[in-house]
């Protein structure tokens, strides 16, 4: 009985420690192929400042900081989930066609500084502090406050 409780406690402690997520520095070569391809394509001239991998129990994610201050995040397959260029501009081509068209039409003078996608939607931040939301089929869903 007591041993059972003891092992239960250990299990809980171990699992929470695992949940806490561990950051680990990696080199560019350790990134998934797709992620390396993405960086080469859109940030050709820019070097990587540092990259790290965050492991959780069932998931892994990668984060790359580039020397120009941009931050790119990838999921475990190497697909990008977030491109954050707060101090410059998200390189052309990353923002999907339909969304780009919508922005050019409605916010002609604004630059996209961050784009984030997940399993539900796209979220974009413009340098004029406007935030936009699009569904996965790139249809405009609304402004975000």
């Amino acid at each position, binding site marked *: 009985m007591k041993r059972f409780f003891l092992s239960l406690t250990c299990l*809980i402690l171990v699992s929470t420690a695992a949940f*806490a997520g561990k950051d680990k*520095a990696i080199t560019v070569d350790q990134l998934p192929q797709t992620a390396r391809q993405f960086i080469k394509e859109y940030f050709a001239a820019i070097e990587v400042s540092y990259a790290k991998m965050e492991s959780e129990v069932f998931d892994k994610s990668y984060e790359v*900081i580039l*020397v120009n*201050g*941009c931050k790119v995040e990838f999921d475990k397959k190497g697909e990008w989930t977030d491109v954050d260029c*707060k101090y*410059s501009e998200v390189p052309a081509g990353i923002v999907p066609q339909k969304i780009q068209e919508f922005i050019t039409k409605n916010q002609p003078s604004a630059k996209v500084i961050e784009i984030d996608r997940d399993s539900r939607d796209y979220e974009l931040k413009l340098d004029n502090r406007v935030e936009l939301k699009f569904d996965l089929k790139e249809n405009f869903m609304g402004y975000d406050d």
Partner: protein
Amino acid sequence: MKLIYRVISRISVALLILMAVWATAFYFIIIDEINDETDDTLEDYSEHIITRALAGEELPSVDNGTNNTYYICEVNREHAIEHEGVRYSEDMIYIESKGETEPARILKTIFRDSLNRYYELTVAIPTIEKEDLQETILSWIVTLYLILLFVIIGLNAWILYRSFKPMYSLLRWLDRFSVGKQLEPLNNDAKITEFRKLNDAVLRSARRNVEVYEQQKVFIGHASHEMQTPLAICQNRLELLVNNADVTESQLEEIIKIKHTLDHIIKLNKTLLLLTKIENDQFPDQKEIVVNDLLKKLIDDYSEVYTYQNISVSFIENAVVKVRMNDVLASVLFGNLLKNAFAHNHKDGRVEVLITSNGVEFSNTAELGELDSSQIFTRFYQGAKKEGFTGLGLTLAASICKLYGIGIRYNYKEKEHHFNLTVPKI
């Protein structure tokens, strides 16, 4: 130990262990989460500074009043490669805004700029607040733990007590129940199937016991009664036979032996009949009897009968004891005890009858050893078989005592039998 206390104590022990484990686990999980959150904050802070630094933006002021501190220094390539990535540590740091050194959680990140220079960024968050938080969490967990424990134990006790009510009422009924007495109605409306079954079973068995007991009593009564006449006839016939001139000497001897045995049987039968009558409550008329007078008369009689034993008798009257009972039964009771005192005595022995305000004590020097006090009042118990005794004398005495609520107790000390009668006050 009552069932309810046993259950509660077991639940308490189980809960104590379970809750202790739970509280410990909960505490560590929370603390871990706090550490994790602190690290996340550090990471965000560090990333914010790095991206700004890399983008060439103005860095936030070091002294921003939040106690969070950071500094960037350039490091050489070797150091950077050796300490690549991120490092967490706990250390003392100097907080400029406060001018104090305080414990802090520190994150060091190595990064590179476009000119291939390596930098190390150190960010730190003081852990003082974290310690406060930990203390608060700990104290609240302990409080919650105690409250829960008491509430659960209290609830359990209450629920168990409520649930077991029918059982306790059944037990109380059983305590009151005794064979030979009128069966009380069992008012126990249990809604629980198990308790209802238990009630039924107990009631059925009690009824059966009473029934069997009654039958037995009636049977013994009838048997003794029916035997009276044939026994008397036998006795008469034997007497006739003795007076017959044709009987030879040796035949006469045999006849006398038979007569002795028959006398014993008749005595036994009479006693049994008396017992049955007492138990059937067939001596309804009572009157006040002065025990002192009765005993004085009985002692005179028995001293005379047993003069050949040369027994010294002392009769001490410290009080006058009166008792309300049937006069026949009173003489049977005191007579029996007194007779025992004389009969189960050795030559030149001693009999003492002591009357106090509580009752009467009969003491006599013992002929044989101690009697078995657990068996002494049951039928046909005799320490050692003795000619002329039925083994029913004390049973008879006990039945009479029971009928009138007189306490009877036997003990043996210093080679003497002591019979104590506790007479209820009237």
